[in-house]
Structure formats: structure tokens, C-alpha cells
């Protein structure tokens, strides 16, 4: 009897691990943590995460596993990559995950790239979201919509 239950549990563990590996791996980012955060749940739907990571004096921009340089050509390449993904699935929410220690002008190019990508893709009503850490439950839903 014991070997059978062993096998059953091993199979469960195996499938959980495999399922997790298949999902999107998000790089660790120290997200902003506002007091009394009025955020909403990110939900379980697939999303497109644009990461702005602080790396010493440098800033790394990434979309999934793909990294982009923090200069004019990198910003353009990021906008093109986002536009390509939006064209494939216009319902995909675009999340911006930026390190809280960064200056706003380091995050601004990523915000501009997302706005540019949305207009490039010609998609109306692309959902753009800002990620933050929240220990509380959501207070209320925001109804802002990007057009």
C-alpha cells in the first residue's frame, strides 16, 4: 500500500513542478510599497511584464527573458517587441514592474515605450497596469482605461 501512495504523491509533486516551470518567470524586483495601498488583484490571466531593474548605476529593461539597453535604440526595440505581442493578443494586460529605488526618469522610457507600442499596434483599450506590493486586501477597482 505504501509504495502506491508514494507513487501518487511523487506524481503530484512532479506535475506541480512541471506546471510551475511552464509559467512565466518574473525577475525579482523591489516593487514600490505605498502606505494604505488601494491596489487591485493582478488576477491569474497571462500578462506581459515590462521590468525596469536597478543594477547599480545601470538600469536594465526586460520583457520576459529578453533584455534591452537603456538607450534610444533599446527603447525603440522594447516598443517594437511590446507592439508585436499586443498585435498577437490585444487583450493581454501590460504590467510595468519597476524598482522602487529608481528615479522616475529611469522608468519614464518604459512607460513611453508601452504607450508607443499600443499606438503602433493600433490596439484600442490596451490595459496598462503599474505593479506594487500590497499587504492589504484590494479596496476598490480602478476604472481607468487607456484609449
Amino acid at each position, binding site marked *: 500500500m*505504501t509504495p502506491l*501512495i*508514494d507513487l501518487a*504523491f*511523487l506524481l*503530484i*509533486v512532479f506535475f*506541480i*513542478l512541471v506546471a510551475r516551470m511552464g509559467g512565466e518567470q518574473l525577475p525579482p524586483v523591489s*516593487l*514600490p*510599497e*505605498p*502606505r*494604505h*495601498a*488601494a*491596489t*487591485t*488583484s*493582478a488576477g491569474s490571466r497571462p500578462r506581459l511584464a515590462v521590468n525596469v531593474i536597478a543594477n547599480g548605476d545601470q538600469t536594465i529593461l526586460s520583457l520576459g527573458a529578453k533584455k534591452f539597453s537603456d538607450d534610444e535604440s533599446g527603447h525603440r526595440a522594447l516598443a517594437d517587441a511590446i507592439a508585436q505581442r499586443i498585435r498577437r493578443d490585444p487583450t493581454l494586460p501590460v*504590467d*510595468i514592474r*519597476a*524598482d*522602487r*529605488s*529608481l*528615479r*522616475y*526618469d*529611469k*522608468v*519614464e522610457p518604459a*512607460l513611453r515605450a*508601452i*504607450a508607443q507600442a*499600443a*499606438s503602433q499596434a493600433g490596439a484600442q483599450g490596451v*490595459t*496598462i*497596469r*503599474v*505593479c*506594487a*506590493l*500590497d*499587504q492589504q486586501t*484590494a*479596496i*476598490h*477597482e*480602478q*476604472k*481607468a*482605461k*487607456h*484609449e
Partner: protein
Amino acid sequence: MIDVVFLLLVFFVCTVRFERNEKVYRLDLPSRGITADPLALQDAPLQIIVGIRDGDRCSIELRADGVRRTAENFDTLATAMEELRRRPGVADGLFETSHPILVVPAAGSQWQDAVDGFNAAVRAGYANIGFAESKR
């Protein structure tokens, strides 16, 4: 029996989420290149000007036509914005919840402060909030 206990242990270790709770704000970025409707009334956005952090202090100003207020911190900013919001049964509210709000961070200000300004507007009950280009 110990096999089963260990397997259960491994199972719970694998399934528990160690990462902290990541939540989101819906964001309305200013759109460009869209032809404005000449007949539509253009609401001047209510601006939240976020300054450069000096130690644990950060200058915060609320600016619109006929409104100019400074806030000590983001909690008082949220309270001031809520007072300005039009609510049923309250006569002195100036802005609808759909009124455009623009977070205008100064060049060199922190992303954390910009998000705090955004959060204050959401807490005050507004729903049409965006980030502007940094103020130089």
C-alpha cells in the same frame, strides 16, 4: 509512514508561495496623436506635482485651475483630494471621479514617490489617473 510524511512535507514546500503579494493599479497613460473632438469640453487635469525627496520629506503640490494646495505627506494629499471630489450630498466638491488626474514627478524624483502620488489619487476615489513626463 515516514516516507509519506516526507512526501507531504515536500508537497507543501513546493506549493507554498514565498513571494510577497504583488498587486496592480490600472493606469491611464496620456495618449498622443489622437484628434481631439472640437466640440468636447476639455477638462484641465488636476496635477499632483511630486518633488525630489530630501531625507524622509518630499514636496507635494496639488494644482488645477483655481486650486493650489501643498500637502505634508501622501496621506494628507489623499484627504485633500477626497475633499475636492464631488460626492452626493456634498455641495463643495469640485471634481468628478472621472476628472483627469496627472501625476507630474519632478526630474530626479523617485518612482516610489510617483506611485505614492498615484495611490493617493486612487484612495481619494478618482478613476482617470495617468503619469506625465517628468517636470524639468
